[in-house]
């Protein structure tokens, strides 16, 4: 069964450093998402991406965040200058349609900011 894959599984970074989280969505999906989950809390939407541009973003997704689809398979989330509060699990998801279509999630990248 096709799946979303994310790398690395765990990233440890010094505060203030840039970090790039990588995702390979399901190959025939057109809509891509990033969510995050702070330990013990619920999953929160960050951003959605379609046709090489951001479709929508939450208030969490400020100027420190950016997304990119550098080639036909990867989808990346960059945090330019990490803060302690960026520590969380970051999940990538993809879906085959805009709405009313299930989003399928990867197993996440645990980001730890020191």
């Amino acid at each position, binding site marked *: 069964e096709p799946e*979303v894959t*994310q790398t690395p599984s765990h990233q440890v970074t010094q505060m203030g450093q840039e970090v790039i989280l990588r995702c390979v969505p399901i190959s025939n999906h057109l*809509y891509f*998402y990033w*969510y995050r989950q702070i330990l013990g*809390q*619920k*999953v*929160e*939407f960050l951003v*959605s991406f379609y046709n090489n541009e951001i*479709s*929508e973003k*939450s208030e969490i997704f400020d100027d420190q965040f950016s997304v990119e689809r550098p080639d036909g398979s990867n989808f990346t989330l960059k945090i330019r200058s990490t803060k302690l509060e960026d520590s969380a699990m970051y*999940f990538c998801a993809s*879906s085959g349609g*805009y*709405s*009313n*279509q*299930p*989003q*399928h*999630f*990867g*197993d*996440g990248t645990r980001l730890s900011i020191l």
Partner: protein
Amino acid sequence: GESVGLHLPTLSVQEGDNSIINCAYSNSASDYFIWYKQESGKGPQFIIDIRSNMDKRQGQRVTVLLNKTVKHLSLQIAATQPGDSAVYFCAENRDPQTSGSRLTFGEGTQLTVNP
């Protein structure tokens, strides 16, 4: 066993029993709902979805019920197995007109299946 709303974060059942996990939503414009299962160290795994023009949908050992009158969603798991132990989240596409395809997640219910 049954959980009520999002305020009871844990549900413990015996193997073989049926489980009912409940979820309340607040936005009557929500038109699509999904149940996810999250095991420790993994991402949310799609279980079943339902559109707002339906009130019931069945999968393999799972049934989702949607009551739009009281804005309530439930997940029923038949013959619960130890492998069903996980956190279960409901998620909604809250208002596609204004928020597109973003999913809003509930707080989750920890299901523990005792052998």
